[in-house]
Structure formats: structure tokens, C-alpha cells
């Protein structure tokens, strides 16, 4: 009986796999984007796309790229992983037209992640304000984090990185290296941040012990904040972020160093929050979203993590708040995926990371 049940399940698996592969169609919505990093959807149907080389592009509703980049951007430090990163609209964008940008600021010798906002008026940035610069400035051009999410109270959380060489600083509450910070939308510090009042602690800190967090999504319906971060060789993590928690880097990790050296003998320690799941070997997760659209009913409430190394999107099934398996999608593209977003039209949008990057639109095949 058990054997026949297993056989039936195997048959179902083999039958369902090709059907799933035919369930979607990938369209090229826009092309000719130079290392695009993030996409945001404007209420008028147009889209904004950042290019890591320091340009913000407007994409018309028909997918054509406005040949003139948006004017009024600040000077951006561009090298290796450094450049212009996130673009996100204010939760009240229709009223205030604020959009938020993250970028690497400084020089090769002294730089870090900066958050700024500006109003988009007549396709130009106005009222530009620097809201936050991660401290301390450090050398090199690696591990900036740079993703934004808005919480239920409309405060924003910004992900940061450890700068690679400063991994132990992810445990130091006195600075912003390897942290997620929470700010009011004007850059001020919310007075209910978890480390407020702790002597010597940076008041902006929301969580600590991170390596390089390049994906964050707030599920308002279930009041859950998910993030993922790059591990070294192995140990990429999906985390459920809670205020004040320590996520362990580099004290506990499933990854090892690129040289083959151990980063830590521990994968868990008391007082450190374990990941919901880890990817070993690394997939290099670069962006996180949760699908809530009408075009793919089966994907409802599932998390989608874009990956660079695996050149895919990981669909992480979520059922009743629990993770319920994964599916690897879009490997047939063979391209690094930098961003994944659930579009207002119900389609899933992807950015491919290369000098001739594309904005792709995933829709049902029929």
C-alpha cells in the first residue's frame, strides 16, 4: 500500500513538473539597462529603474526606456558592488511624491551606504535630502545591503552590510556595519527603536548580526518582516526579523570563507536567532518579495527570492506562516536576477544583472 502510494506520488511529481514549466511565459518588457538594481511602480503605470552605474531611468507603460535619465541624482561612489541601489516610493507617494534612494557614498578609502529622498516632479528630482549615512565609513567596495521596506507604522527599515572586512563589527551595537536600521521617513530615529537608551548603542539599529542583507519584505497582512542575506561560501539565510534580535553573523553561520577557512565553528549559539532556512551551497539572494496578485493564484502569499549565483528565482511556499518547500524558477534564463517584484498588474517582474540588463515580465502562459 505504502509502495503504491509512493509510486503514485512520484508519478504525480513527474507529471506536474512539465506542467508547471508551461504555466508561465517570460516577456522582455524593457532592455538596454546597464546593471539594473531595483524597480518601482509609479501610480501612473510607468516604472522607475535604478542602474548601479548611477542612473535612474523612467520606463513608460509600454516598456520603452526614456532615453534621458532622471536629472538631479547625487554623486554616487561606483566600484565593484558599490553604486546606485534601491528605489522605493513613499507609502503616501500619491500625496507627497517622495521617493527613496540608496547608494554608496564616499571614496574607495572611505565609503558606506547612504539613504536619501527626493520628490519626482516633471521627471526630475527636487527637494533632495540625505536622510542617513551608515557609520563608520570604511574602505573597499563590498557589502552595502541597500534594500528598503516600510513597516505598518510607515517607518522604514534599511538593510546594511558588514563591508566584508569588518565582519566582527556586525556584533558591535555601536555602529551600523552588519545591521538593519529603522528610521522615520524624514530620517529621524523612532523613539521605540529596540536599542534606544542602551548606552553606546546606535539608536537606529533594528536588528544586528547580519552579513550583507539584500532582500527585505514586510508582509503587512501577517505583520511579518522577512529578510535574506548573503552568506560567504554557503550560509545564505532567510530570516524573520524581530526588533532587537541578533542574527548571529559571524558567531554562528552555515557558511565558510572563500579561502576554505572556517568563519565559526558554530551554526547556532544561545541568544542568537537562527534563520528560517539557509542555502548551502550559496545561491546569492539579491531581492525578496511576496506575491499577492491575481495572475498566479497558486503563488499567493509565497515568498520569491531572486538569486545571482544560482541564476534563478526561489519560490518559497508559505502556508499558515510556515515555510512549506521551495521551487527553483526561471533557471532557463541563465541570467543573474537582481530584483524580483510583484507588479500591480499581477505579473512578476524581474531585473537581470548584466551590462545589457533587461526588465522581464512573468505572466501566465495562456
Amino acid at each position, binding site marked *: 500500500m505504502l509502495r503504491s502510494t509512493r509510486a503514485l506520488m512520484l508519478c504525480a511529481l513527474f507529471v506536474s513538473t512539465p506542467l508547471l514549466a508551461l504555466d508561465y511565459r517570460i516577456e522582455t518588457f524593457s532592455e538596454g539597462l546597464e546593471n539594473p538594481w531595483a524597480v518601482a511602480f509609479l501610480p501612473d503605470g510607468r516604472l522607475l529603474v535604478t542602474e548601479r552605474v548611477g542612473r535612474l531611468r523612467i520606463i513608460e507603460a509600454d516598456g520603452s526606456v526614456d532615453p534621458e535619465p532622471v536629472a538631479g541624482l547625487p554623486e554616487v561612489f561606483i566600484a*565593484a*558592488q558599490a553604486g546606485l541601489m534601491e528605489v522605493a516610493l513613499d507609502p503616501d507617494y500619491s500625496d507627497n511624491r517622495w521617493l527613496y534612494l540608496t547608494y554608496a557614498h564616499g571614496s574607495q578609502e572611505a565609503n558606506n551606504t547612504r539613504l536619501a529622498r527626493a520628490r519626482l516632479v516633471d521627471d526630475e528630482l527636487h527637494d533632495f535630502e540625505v536622510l542617513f549615512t551608515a557609520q563608520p565609513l570604511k*574602505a*573597499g*567596495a*563590498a557589502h552595502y545591503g541597500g534594500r528598503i521596506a516600510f513597516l505598518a507604522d510607515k517607518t522604514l527599515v534599511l538593510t546594511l552590510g558588514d*563591508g*566584508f*572586512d569588518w565582519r*566582527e563589527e556586525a*556584533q558591535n551595537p555601536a555602529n551600523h556595519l552588519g545591521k538593519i536600521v529603522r528610521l522615520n521617513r524624514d530620517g529621524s530615529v523612532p523613539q521605540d527603536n529596540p536599542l534606544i537608551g542602551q548606552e553606546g548603542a546606535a539608536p537606529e539599529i533594528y536588528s544586528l548580526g547580519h552579513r550583507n542583507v539584500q532582500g527585505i519584505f514586510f508582509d503587512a497582512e501577517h505583520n511579518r518582516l522577512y529578510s535574506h542575506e548573503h552568506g560567504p561560501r554557503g550560509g545564505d539565510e532567510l530570516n524573520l526579523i524581530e526588533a532587537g534580535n541578533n542574527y548571529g553573523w*559571524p*558567531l554562528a553561520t552555515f557558511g*565558510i*570563507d*572563500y*579561502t*576554505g*577557512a*572556517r*568563519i*565559526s*565553528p*558554530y551554526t547556532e*549559539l544561545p541568544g542568537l536567532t537562527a534563520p528560517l532556512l539557509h542555502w548551502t551551497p550559496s545561491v546569492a539572494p539579491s531581492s525578496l518579495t511576496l506575491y499577492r496578485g491575481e495572475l498566479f493564484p497558486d503563488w499567493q502569499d509565497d515568498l520569491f527570492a531572486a538569486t545571482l549565483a544560482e541564476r534563478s528565482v526561489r519560490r518559497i511556499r508559505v502556508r499558515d506562516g510556515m515555510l512549506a518547500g521551495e521551487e527553483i524558477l526561471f533557471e532557463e534564463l541563465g541570467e543573474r536576477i537582481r530584483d524580483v517584484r510583484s507588479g500591480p498588474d499581477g505579473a512578476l517582474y524581474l531585473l537581470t544583472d548584466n551590462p545589457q540588463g533587461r526588465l522581464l515580465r512573468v505572466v501566465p502562459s495562456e
Partner: protein
Amino acid sequence: MSSKPRLLLAFLLAVLLASLLASIFQTQTNLAALQALGAPMPLDVRVGTTCLDLIGFAPTFALLSALGFLLALPLAAWLARRMPPLRWLIFVLSGAAAIWTALALANAVAPMPTLIAADRSPFGTLGLMACGSVGALLFGLLGRRVRYRVQPTSSESL
């Protein structure tokens, strides 16, 4: 043993020694940093991690030190023949310079600021260079030309 195989063996043993020492040094500096952050570090964890790094990290360092030694050790041997009183100093400095150069080149080529964790601080860099010096000294010791003095036979002495 003729000169070339003897030198090759000395070179390989120098790389091996430098890599083993560097791996042990890398592990201990890393564990010390974790300990400073509050991680428990009992002896069995320390020994186990050291062994894992000898398997995982030492080959990486062997590659780097081999590249550095390839240029530095023949040059050191040539200089040592011309300046016999400075022989050991020459090998100490050449081993250190070989590792420093290899680390600098690796950091220039690798996408991350610093490839090897121990190399992130001046103390760590000096420690790795010292491992290179020990390896180079072994090469100087094993690669020495052995000179045999011809002893007169008893009949000749008569």
C-alpha cells in the same frame, strides 16, 4: 641526491611548512576574535576547527605561498651564495616578502577588500609573513650545497 630534485623537495617542504603554520595561525586569530565576542572556545572546538582549516584553508595558502616562493626563494639562494654571512637573514626576509607580495596580489585581484581573514590587521599580516619566513628558512637549510672535504687516506698519510 642531485641538486635539482633536492631543491624541488626543499621547495615543496618549505611551502608545506609555511602553509601548515599559516593555517594554524589563521585559525587561532579567527577563534580569538570570536572568543572576544563571547563565543565559548573549549579545547575540542579549537582543535577540531584547526584540523578543518588544515584541510580547507591550508591548500589555498599553499597555492599563494608557492607563487610567492617561486620568485623569492631562488633569488634568496643566489644572494645567499654571494653574501654567506647574511644567509639566514636573507631567507627570513625573502620568505616574509614572498608572502606579503602574494597577499597583496591576491587582494588586488580578488573582488573583496582582503582575501584572507588574518590579513585584515597588521598583526595578522606580520604573522602570516613570519610563517613564510619559517618556510624560507627550511628551504635555506635543506637546499644548502653540502661540500665534502677530501680526507687523506691512511696510506697517503704515511
